Structure formats: C-alpha cells, structure tokens
C-alpha cells in the first residue's frame, strides 16, 4: 500500500479564480510519476468521488514536464460568499492524502 501522502512531494489545493478550486499532486522522480500515470488511479472520476462533483466538471491534466497531475473543478461556493469556509482554497487537499496508489 502506497499512499499519496508517502509518495508525493506536493499535494496542495488553491483557488483558480474565485469560482474554481485547483488541486495539484507532484512527484519528484519520473519513474514514480510514470507508474502513477499508468495506473490510472488519478483521474476525473477520483476527484468527482472525493469532492462530490460531476466528473464532467473536472478538468484533469497530467503534466509530464512537471511530473504533476492537476484537477480543477467548481468551488462549493464562490470565494468569500456566505458559507465559504476557505477563501484561498488552500486546505481542500486532505481527502487525497490517503488515496492508495497501486505502484
């Protein structure tokens, strides 16, 4: 069992504008990145399940040059609106930390 929290060098979330949240998972060696990419575990459906959004609202991009995966999807409410819990969107990454990577 290899969890993202043990294998990744970066796992973070942030606003991408006031209406979207973007999450990055970055690895520091190309062999691990390649295995994660080949496994298909990181995919729009994973983010859809973890964050309760339709998969078609998830923009998912593997970025080989940075050994990174990025997923962007709508915020629960726009930044700073009544009910927003995280104006900068930087504490929404935790559900990913315990995703098991079959590598």
């Amino acid at each position, binding site marked *: 069992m290899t969890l993202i929290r043990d294998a990744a*060098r970066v796992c973070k979330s942030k606003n991408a504008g006031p209406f979207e949240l973007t999450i990055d998972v970055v690895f520091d060696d190309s062999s691990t990145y390649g295995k994660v990419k080949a496994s298909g575990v990181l995919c729009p459906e994973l983010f859809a399940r973890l964050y309760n959004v339709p998969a078609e609202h998830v923009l998912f*991009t593997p970025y080989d040059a940075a050994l990174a995966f990025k997923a962007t999807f709508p915020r629960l409410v726009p*930044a*700073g609106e009544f009910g927003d819990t995280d104006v900068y969107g930087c504490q929404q990454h935790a559900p990913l930390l315990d995703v098991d990577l079959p590598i």
Partner: protein
Amino acid sequence: MSAKEIRLLSTSAILGYGFPEASLKAGMARKPDMIGVDGGSSDPGPHYLGVGKPFCSPISIRRDLRLMLHAAIEAGIPMVIGTCGGAGGEPHLNLVADMAREIAREDGLHFKMALIHAEQSPAEIKRRIAAGGIHPLAHQPELTDAVVDRSTRIVGMMGPEPFIEALDNGAQVVLAGRSSDPAPWAAMCIRAQLPPAPAWYAGKMLECGATPSIPKGHDSLFVTVREDHMECEPCNPIRRCTPLSIANHSLHENASPIHHIEPGGMLDTSDCRFDAVSDRAVRISGMKWTPAPQYTVKLEGVELAGYRAMCIAGTRDPLLIGRLDSFLASVRSEVAVKAAAFGASPDTYKLGFRVYGRDGVMAEREPVRNAVPHEVGFVIEVVGQQSQEMASAVLGVARANMLHTDFPGRLCREGNMAFPFSPSDIEVGPVYRFSVYHVADVADPREMFPIEYEMM
C-alpha cells in the same frame, strides 16, 4: 537596451508582504533592467475591491515602496507595480500613488510617474453589453445592466500594452490598477523585442517573488529572459530554485497546467523543460505563445451582500456534542422567532454555524463523518441585508441562545458555550460578493486603461 537579454528583479509576492533589504541589495548588484512587484490579487476575496481598501496594511506597503523607489531611482531603471493597493480600483491606485508622492517629497526623489487606471465606468460596461462584447467566465450568467448597476466597483484586468505605452513615454515609475499578474514583466520584455512566450513565462515566475524557490518565504527573485528561455534565481542565498520548485510553481492558481489564458493569447507550457543551471538557478525553455483571435480583458466586480456580525465560542460537553445538529436546529428556530419580533424576518438575514472540529474547513465536502471530537469550536455568524445594527441584533440573539438553549439530557445548566472574549460579538461591517467575472472584447488593448503622467 539589448534585445538579447532582459534582467528583472521582483522584490516579493505582494507589495507589503515585506522582503529582506539584503535581498534587494543583492538583486540590484546584478544590474536589473527593471524592478517591480505585484500589488494584489482577487485571492483574498471580494471584500477589498468592494470596500476600496488594501489587504496589506498601508504601513507595510509604504515600507516596501520606499525601499523600491530608492533602489530604482538610484540605479536609473524603471519600477513597475501592477494591481496597486490589492484590488486595483481607483481608491487602491490612489493610495499607492499618494504614498509614492509623499516618499518622493520627503526623500527628495525625482522621477516621471505614470498612473494606469483600471476601474471601469458602469455606463461604459453597459455600452459594451449592448454591443454584445461581454462574455461570461467560469459558468457565470450573462452580464446584465441590473448587475452592473448594483455592483459597487468593476475593474478591468490589463495586459502588457498599457505598461509598454507608459514605459515608452518615459515613465520611470509605473503604478497600475488591476493587471494580469505577469503583465508588467511581460511588457518590459516584449518592448525589448523578446518573444512573448519567455516574456509571459518570466512574468508568471516573478509575480510571486521568491515563491518558486525553497525554502518558501516572502523574498526576492531575479529572472533573466533571453530569446528562447529564461532563468530564475532567488536573491537570498538561503533559498534555491530547483527544477521541482519551479515545476511546482508552474501549477500555481491556474485551471490548466499547460494552457495559461492571458489577455492577448495563450501560453502553452506542454513542452517546457526545467533544467538546473546551478544548485540555485533553473533554466526554463520550450514554452510557446499562441495569439488569441480576439483580444479580451477580464472584468472583476463585486456587489454588497449585507453586513456581518460574528462570534466565537466552543463546547467541551460530550452530551451536547453528541446531539449537535438537533441543538443547532433548535437555536435556529428560536432565533427566527425572536429576531422576527424586532423586525428581522428570516428572509432578511443568513445565520451560519461553522463547526470547527467537525467540518469547519470542508463543509459538505468533508468526507470524515463519524468522528466524535472531544471539543468543538463555533463561529456563529449573521449576514443581514438591512444594516449592521440589525445583523448585530440577530447575532446577539443567536449567541444568547447558543449559551442558554436547553437540550435533552443537559447537565451543564449554567451555559453551553465557552466564550473566549468579552465582548463576545464582533461587528465585521459590509460584506461583498463577486458579481462580475466576465471578459470584454476590445479593439485596442489600451482602450479601457487611461494613463496619466506626472513629474515628481
């Protein structure tokens, strides 16, 4: 000016975040062609654009600005700041411009200053709506005259072109309203005939100061831009740029890691390479720029959402924690009755209970649902439409009922909540929400951004 190489020094991620004076000195020793800093962001939320105030204190902004002005004037190079005052509206730009004037007067500095305005008149935005030249972003509804009328303030986000014009007209200090973060840096490179791709990429690194380095901290970054690549190196010897730190920063705040939409086109980073040129510097190459068929300017606007009052409390009572939802429901219904009695019906305010220790950070997206914390913190808030006074009145009732409302099995009959402060209630003031997040088609990238010049 050589078209072969442009050297750029960014003091920090935001004007007012602070930077070590030694970093500025080390950067200046490398003979930059321009120094600058990003002045703001929409990231701290809609409040600052609405209220017309900066999110950094004027005291900290003045400290950074004074050091930068002295460095630039003494070296005879331009100093450029985008998104002045945090949100880049008129009051924000005026705040920084007034500081620059005062510093120049106090310290005997002389320079030509350009102010580039970014706040948009409602009439002009409505004219553009009528002409069909405004389009929504991020699944927002079409912009209407009604939304424009009730918006407190709307700014346009400028690209590099107004900066190029100001620099070409001999301004040594350029203070701009809302700008695309990389635009001031891209401007300096593009007017020196460097290609847009490394110019924009350089801007993406510089707009956050030393953030693309490790250890992360508010500090200065030096970037050298050449024909087909750029190199990043932090000014402070305790920091390093590594291929990983640069790659990580390339993901920052963008929906896509490979397609970065900018006012006049798209920066494509799919084929970028990150190569260490020393143990502290990284070369980035392989970026591409595709001009957009239509130049667009992003618009940001906010409207008043009401007035907030809030209160912080906590409970250590397991009997209450065990039946929190039904307790909060009964508090809510008591507040509804009592507030209606003094003129605040439930449709005139929003009452929120943020429960820290349970789902205060992720709300409905919190996946952990079965944990039983031993203590729980509450932020109780009211956003009322009528007035601050009425929001505070409703909050007062909510606070008192959180303290005293009975629940089945209650043993703590003197009170349910621990309040850390007296007074317990905080009046937050006006609350804004984003109302405009659209783009405007423009024929000339400068047409929404008038420039004024003055001599210090």
